[in-house]
């Protein structure tokens, strides 16, 4: 069992009917690393994250998460990871506190551990007294905060975050980024997808540029900028796409 790598993906292929979503995707994420997947809509970011979260099955290829195979050992993976979908919804009629409490009781065996985790998550959400309000009354930013709190409350070894700050205002987005950064300082890993190149540049130690289901470039943000002679990741991305096209 490989423990040093949080994620290991080799030649991952995914078909939806006749449509190919991922073509021989290969990358790895080390333990304690924040890894970013960047690319336009429909590039294959969400499909990759869903496979890692054991929601979708790979058509072919080798995918291991925290040393476990995503097909045959999916249940083991689920107890070690936490997944945040891009458009993750909330249970409108539950309060934020009830939601966190229910999730904590699923993840933690002991009642005390669950209660402590909920208290931590309540603080992490920063929702204050609104935590006891029904979630249907929450703003988009508040909903995302409660989801982020839920993700990190369970102390996962790997957090899989699909567009964690999408649609959030600058205050909420900064808050979420701060939490992600703090979380990995404890030696845990994060893989996230984003459209926001600046966010990825600040957060991720390494990243992969994905387009049309293929990884086009992979490396540290600074190394990629140096390689393509670009001042920022946005320009790197544009140059890579053009080079790929030609």
């Amino acid at each position, binding site marked *: 069992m490989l423990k040093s790598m949080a994620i290991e993906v080799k030649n991952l292929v995914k078909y939806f009917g006749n449509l190919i979503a991922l073509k021989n995707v290969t990358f790895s994420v080390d333990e304690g690393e924040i890894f970013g997947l960047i690319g336009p809509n429909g590039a294959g970011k969400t499909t990759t994250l869903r496979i890692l979260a*054991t929601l979708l099955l790979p058509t072919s290829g080798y995918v291991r998460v925290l040393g476990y195979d995503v097909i045959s050992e999916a249940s083991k993976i*689920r107890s070690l*990871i936490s*997944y945040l979908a891009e458009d993750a919804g909330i*249970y409108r009629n539950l309060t934020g506190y009830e939601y966190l409490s229910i999730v904590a*009781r*699923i993840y933690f065996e*002991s009642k005390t551990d669950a209660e402590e985790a909920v208290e931590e998550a309540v603080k992490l959400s920063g929702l204050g007294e609104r935590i006891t309000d*029904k979630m249907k009354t929450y703003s988009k930013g508040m909903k995302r905060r409660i989801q982020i709190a839920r993700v990190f409350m369970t102390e996962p070894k790997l957090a899989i975050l699909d567009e964690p700050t999408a649609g959030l205002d600058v205050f909420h987005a900064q808050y979420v980024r701060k939490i992600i950064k703090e979380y990995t300082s404890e030696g845990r890993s994060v893989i996230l997808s984003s459209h926001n190149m600046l966010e990825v540049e600040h957060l991720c130690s390494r990243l992969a540029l994905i387009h049309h289901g293929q990884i086009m470039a992979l490396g540290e943000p600074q190394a990629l900028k140096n390689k393509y002679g670009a001042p920022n990741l946005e320009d790197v991305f544009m140059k890579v796409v053009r080079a790929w096209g030609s």
Partner: protein
Amino acid sequence: MGKLRPLVEKEIKDLLRDPRIYIGLIIPIIMLPLMGFAISTAMSHVGESATRSLKVTLIDHDRTNVSRSFITLLDNLGLKIMEISDESLLKAIEKAKASGSQALLVIPQGFGESLLGFERAKVEVYSIVESIGMSSIGAQSTVNKILDASSEILSSMLISKIAPEAEPEVIRKPLNVTGYTVIKDRIISAPLQVIFGQLVIGYGIMIPLILFVLSIIVTQIAATATAIENEEKTLETLLTFPVSRYEILMAKLLGSSVIAVLGGIMFTLGFLLYFQGFFGFMGQEFRVEGVLEVLPLPPPENYALLAISLILSIFFITSLGVIIGALSSDVRMSTSLLGVVIIPVLIPSLLIMYGDIKNLPLFLQLLIYALPTSYPMIMSKEMIISTMPPEVLYGIPYSAILTLMVVYVTSKLLAPEKLLVLQYKLKLGRRKEKMKVRK
């Protein structure tokens, strides 16, 4: 701490607080008694108005002492008579209408002669229908009752004239029929007609109807709950939790069943209140326990079998609801797909309620016995008056196997890989249908 418990808690809390669910639960307990009250008020008003202002127009062509006495008798029995002179039938009807009479009575010539000659005397009744309503029917019924009563009085008078010593009632009804009803090993001192209403309405219709409504509620709740998960995008997150698909499904089944049982209780209460109101007007007490007082209760094992059958039936139908909800991308779609499940359940339920299964064609019998939802209905109907039929007993293991299969298939379906493909295919199919309709 079991993982199922928080999931069930989530289901129940989320469902009970959802207006789409709780409004549906509250409606029967408000609407049904209101309906019962409205019907009974309307009916009692009809009864009162029918007796209060019962007016008839009368033409006496006979004009004998006998016909005059007959008119006095009708008057004494409560008819408000407006007598008009000898004229054509059409004109008489016009006059009757203009005066607001409910009927025109015509006593033909020879009426008195016929009666005195011990022959049947003719009276013509022209019922005037001014509206198609209960008041019109009520008025006509009262006119007929008064004529029947007068006929009985005349009959007694004629009998007394022929045989002064005889008892007119004995001559009219020489047979003293005393009815008993045999159910199981018990002889009940009441004719079948007396307890038939309670048996048919209580056990033949009401209990199967409640079970049917319970099936509908449970399917609807399970489908809506799962469709909401799809619509609100919470199912995807739920499926990444360290819980098995089976536990997620069980939580949905248990949560929906608890809410459905609550809904069933609400409906039963509403239904009983509706019947109280309805039968209250008719001067009958609607009491299901009336039959229970005279009938021996079924043995406890029958209740146990009924409970097992009911649980299996609820799990079966809830699983179908979860499948519908899982395949629907939103609540609207699940509502339209629900008909696919409800109609096949509705037809056997109606057959069980109103028919005798053994007399039905074979394919309908097979349809009834193919559905686990039929068995508790048949059991509740049969166990009170007969021993449990063997085919119903065989139905329990059959229902258990079928339900397990459906639960297994449903738990396998709760995988995004399969759901995405199936939802896509369903959407595509519906789009094609819409295109066809437009063309």
